[in-house]
């Protein structure tokens, strides 16, 4: 409970701080941006379309692999706590688990998913 209150407090504090930076009125020029000021920075060039688009993230396959691989963390945290108590058995178990998942990474690498598609 204290954790949640602290976290909420921290977020509120930073939000107030950033809004305060913007609204403190220290600038004599705090007006809204004009249309030419709003143009995106391209070194003087002008774009034909909005930048928001169906953006081709070249590493999309990697992210899918990552989501599956990262799930293993959920099992690893509780494992870490009892590792010393369980000893060698725990090491073997987790070694096997990681070995299984590493096969997935190797497969992905062989298929070339860590390159820009």
């Amino acid at each position, binding site marked *: 409970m204290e954790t949640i209150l602290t976290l909420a407090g921290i977020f509120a504090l930073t939000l107030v701080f950033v809004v305060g930076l913007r609204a403190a009125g*220290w600038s*004599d*020029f705090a*007006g809204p941006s*004009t*249309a*030419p*000021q709003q*143009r995106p*920075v*391209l*070194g*003087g*060039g*002008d*774009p*034909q*379309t*909005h*930048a*928001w*688009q*169906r*953006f*081709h*993230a*070249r590493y999309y396959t990697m992210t899918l692999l990552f989501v599956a691989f990262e799930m293993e963390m959920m099992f690893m945290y509780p494992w870490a706590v009892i590792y010393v108590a369980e000893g060698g058995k725990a090491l073997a178990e987790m070694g096997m688990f990681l070995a299984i998942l590493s096969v997935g990474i190797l497969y992905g690498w062989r298929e070339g998913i860590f390159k*820009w*598609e």
Partner: protein
Amino acid sequence: MGMTWITRLAAGARVPVFIAMGDGAPAAALTLSRHPGLSVVDTPRAASILLVAGQMPDALIPYLHRLHDQLPHPRATLLWQSPPIPSLPDAIAVDADDDIGRAVADVFAAVLEGKRASAPDILPDAPPSEWRGVGPHGQGGKGMMGGTPYGRPMAMTDDDIRDRLALDSYTAAFGPFLPFFPPGLVLTLTLQGDVIQKVVVTHPPFDHDGSPLATLLNLLGLPALATRSLGDRADDPVLRRLIQLSGARFAIPSGLGRLPDGSDVRTRFDRMTGAAPDAASQDAGDTTLEHLLVGLEWHAAMLVLCSLDPATLRDICKNSDTGDQDETQGESESEMHAGHMS
């Protein structure tokens, strides 16, 4: 308006300067980042002073206007060794032999204290195209992708040369005032994600040497070494050692940007740092920018662009598609552009 404590404090800051390189810019413009009172910034959004160094050809004046308006207020423009530009009546002229640091600091203080009005916009305050129109929300067209919401159309799908997943493409003129672009060069690039799909040379680079090693080091994320490389010590052993240590050579993929003479970005980088003997001159052959850049990811493409020596780059640009060589494409390109702007 006036001097509050905060403006007084701000007036003592390093002056953030954005440099717009023109033709025949003074050699000192390249080493300005070594000036103790100035900080040369990457983006106009962070600058207070726009420094136009050298003469600006007419073709680049519209680009200069757009750049000028992108600076936040308070702002001012200095013309350094440049003939007056009629559309910039407020700009302050600085001669070749004046102390540029002094001149910039004076203008900066004057603007900040309110003694000098912040430079007004040049371009009219209107969205890039009319957009109150047909749609129920005034987006100017029917459907989800139609019209010109907020004054610009939305990107449309295009074929992808790399993995054939046809997503949206983004076309824009990049440069000439990007800090890592060779001075004067404007490229109309079509990007899909961060991969370049199409290159058109809209304006060739100036006949101007630039500082390719510093730019390359900056691109490799080594700004401090870049500044050091601009120093007056011709053969700096510490610099060479630090570059070696940084793994810059390893950071450049081998075989990137290969020219007919067999040199790639890595060997050209070696020549610049003095790790390899200087070749007499690069031979561009009939290489085009299309050959060099298309299919590359942004960072790699910029490394290729900045590794070329200026004369070679100009040759390559002459070989390349300049927008009007290919009649139909150039036309549709520019008309499409005009269509959106009108």
